């Protein structure tokens, strides 16, 4: 029996020590939520001529709440890979019910007009519309602009030797012109008031086609609505512009930008002959009065200059005025939006399930003939978005999905803060509910992928066909814009990186994938992919 006792003892002691041999934390990797930024806003820069923007895009943020604004990747430096700017709000400085964040995005690209985009982010506006900003080269005409460059000789004291006149050309794309008349003896001063001297002054003017729908994205600030406008009565506030003419005049003496003149010069802007004053059924005519406003890109401020009666000059409706400073000039109607509360659309789209789609909203005045605002949103069923930048008068709107009109309506008073439910109908052909999920393994363990915007196009389609698919959150995006059985090209933007995945088949509704440094990382650029992974893993 002693042997039995020993055997029983060994058995029980062995069981005792063999039990619970696994560390409870074995392969449990603490994951930090990469969605640090919950409030985001985006801008998409495009070249007016359809060209490729250079890589040296300088983006900075100014204004009251600039300190709260970061690149979506979390860096204070704002990146614009391929012209895509994605901004985020510091998680400790998000907007509240009593505080809407206001800031300006300054965009500088050598050879292009500088842009100052005023932006606001209000509480609840987690994912704002993406502002389309069209960048215009200063000395190259586009389908929406005409350009003139003129050298004017100067006396040794820096004054003009003789009267000088020059005008933007009337082109097939832009029939209207802007002419500038500089009297003899005119002197030029810089921003500090210093008199500029040199052999000549280089003058250039860009005249915009005020009748082109593209003016919405060409206009200063990227919208016809502007938050910082000094009115005729000296007060400042938000306003909506209805431009009949728009021009940008710059002059340089010895490379220094001219801001003021010793003698006023005349600027004469031909107006869009189809322009209608608000409420009028007929186009503008001689004798109608338009307001002239100037715009300073450095401050983002519009300022009332004068009221001018439209005249006919050289057979064209023209607004002539005198000015002693240089800047951008807008002629047209300006509507104060003081106290304006933007409407909110709540989207009802049960067919989406938990997935998303992307829609565009086009807002018109004059019964759908004049585009006054255009926005693009990634939406989900039940999502609410505030439609900012609308005029303070009645408008109509159409909603498009993949270019097709799916809903339309009108807003009698866009400043009444109305909340409307908009039903987004299911497409005629049933959509596929696709989930793309990217898991990333690092040497330290699995990480959650930081958020980024993902664009797509049908495989092989032209570069310009890339469209927003949506924002990838925690490595996942659920969309209705892809179809099982088709191949797509995908492009992601994060930090200063652009990653394109070409000809990716969508073979199933769940397209989950896990990648690690030692996994298969594609055939086209595995080393680049690996470097992206290593960089991402450094952050954890």
């Amino acid at each position: 029996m002693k042997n039995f006792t020993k055997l029983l003892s060994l058995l029980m002691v062995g069981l005792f020590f063999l039990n619970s041999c696994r560390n409870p934390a074995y392969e449990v990797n603490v994951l930090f939520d990469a969605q640090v930024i919950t409030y985001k806003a985006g801008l998409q820069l495009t070249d007016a001529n359809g060209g490729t923007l250079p890589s040296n895009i300088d983006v900075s943020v100014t204004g009251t709440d600039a300190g709260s604004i970061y690149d979506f990747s979390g860096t204070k430096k704002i990146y614009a890979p391929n012209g895509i700017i994605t901004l985020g709000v510091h998680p400790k400085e998000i907007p509240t019910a009593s505080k809407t964040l206001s800031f300006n995005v300054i965009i500088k690209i050598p050879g292009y007009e500088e842009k100052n985009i005023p932006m606001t982010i209000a509480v609840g506006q987690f994912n704002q519309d993406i502002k389309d900003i069209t960048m215009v080269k200063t000395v190259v005409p586009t389908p929406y602009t005409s350009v003139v460059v003129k050298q004017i000789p100067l006396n040794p004291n820096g004054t003009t030797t003789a009267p000088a006149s020059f005008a933007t050309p009337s082109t097939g794309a832009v029939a209207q012109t802007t002419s500038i008349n500089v009297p003899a003896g005119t002197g030029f001063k810089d921003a500090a008031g210093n008199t500029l001297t040199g052999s000549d002054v280089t003058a250039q003017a860009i005249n915009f086609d005020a009748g082109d729908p593209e003016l919405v994205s060409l206009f200063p600030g990227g919208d016809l609505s502007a938050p910082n406008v000094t009115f005729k009565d000296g007060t400042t506030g938000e306003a909506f512009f209805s431009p009949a003419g728009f021009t940008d005049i710059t002059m340089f003496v010895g490379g220094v930008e001219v801001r003021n003149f010793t003698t006023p010069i005349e600027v004469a802007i031909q107006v869009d002959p189809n322009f209608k004053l608000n409420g009028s059924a007929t186009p503008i005519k001689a004798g109608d009065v338009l307001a002239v406003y100037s715009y300073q890109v450095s401050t983002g401020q519009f300022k009332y200059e004068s009221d001018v009666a439209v005249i006919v000059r050289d057979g064209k409706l023209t607004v002539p005025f005198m000015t002693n400073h240089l800047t951008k000039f807008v002629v047209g109607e300006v509507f104060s939006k003081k106290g304006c509360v933007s409407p909110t659309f709540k989207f009802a789209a049960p067919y989406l399930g938990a997935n998303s789609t992307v829609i565009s909203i086009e807002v018109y005045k004059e019964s759908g003939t004049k585009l006054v605002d255009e926005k693009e949103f990634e939406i989900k069923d039940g999502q609410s978005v505030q439609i900012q930048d609308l005029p303070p008068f009645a408008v109509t709107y159409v909603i498009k999905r993949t270019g097709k009109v799916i809903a339309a309506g009108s807003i009698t008073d866009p400043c009444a803060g109305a909340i409307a439910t908009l039903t987004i109908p299911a497409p005629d052909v049933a959509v596929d509910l696709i989930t793309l999920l990217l898991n990333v393994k690092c040497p330290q363990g699995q990480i959650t992928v930081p958020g980024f915007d993902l664009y797509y196009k049908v495989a092989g389609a032209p570069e310009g066909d890339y469209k927003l698919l949506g924002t990838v959150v925690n490595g996942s995006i659920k969309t209705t814009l892809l179809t099982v059985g088709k191949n797509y090209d995908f492009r992601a933007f994060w930090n200063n990186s652009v990653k394109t995945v070409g000809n990716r088949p969508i073979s199933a509704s769940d397209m989950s994938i896990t990648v690690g440094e030692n996994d298969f990382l594609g055939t086209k650029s595995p080393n680049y992919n690996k470097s992206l992974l290593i960089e991402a893993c450094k952050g954890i």
Partner: protein
Amino acid sequence: MKRTITILSLSLLLALGTQVNAQSTATIDSAARSKVTISATVATQGVGLDLKYAPTPQFAVRVGASILPISGGGVYKVRSEPTDVDFDVNFANAHLMFDWHPFLKETGLSRKVVVTAGAAYFWEAKGDVVVSYRGTYKYGDILIPSSDLGQLYGSVEWKKVAPYLGFGFENVFPSKKFNVGFAVGTYYLGEPDATLTGTNYLSQNTSNQQQLQKNMSYYRFMPVLQINLNFGL
């Protein structure tokens, strides 16, 4: 936990020594022995009380209860940053055991062998852990202090009813009212349910729950090393 096991092991050796000495010097006949014994137990599953009734020297039935409330914590390294880990373990059971002395006719240590089988009802059989990351999480240029990172909550809960099997050493015929016994065995608790949830920036860790569940599936047995402080009534 290691310190607890060490102390219990030393106690075991002491207990064994006590029993051997008792056996060699004191034995009474079966008619004079105590049929009812009350025992205070100190064991890996907690401290408790047992009441034993032995109608014959060979067989006995025991009922009792034990509790194990443990709280503690420590500082560990997660991603090279100190991390506070606080845990709270609670085991409490009422049990019914049957003892069998199969070798009473033997001499030496074998004579004291008691085989025990039974079951317990655990009204508490769970462990909770709270993990708080002390470091600063850096997302680009944005620094998230530990106070904002949130916490990770882990919870493991076993089934309520668990069978028990074990053996020990007890003197069936002690010469004194007080004696010491020893038992070793295990409860079979089955696979526990494990949950892992996080708050704030640790909310993505529910994906780790599956791994935790897998790890905790190894913890099906609750080993018992027990010292019985018996008092014959």
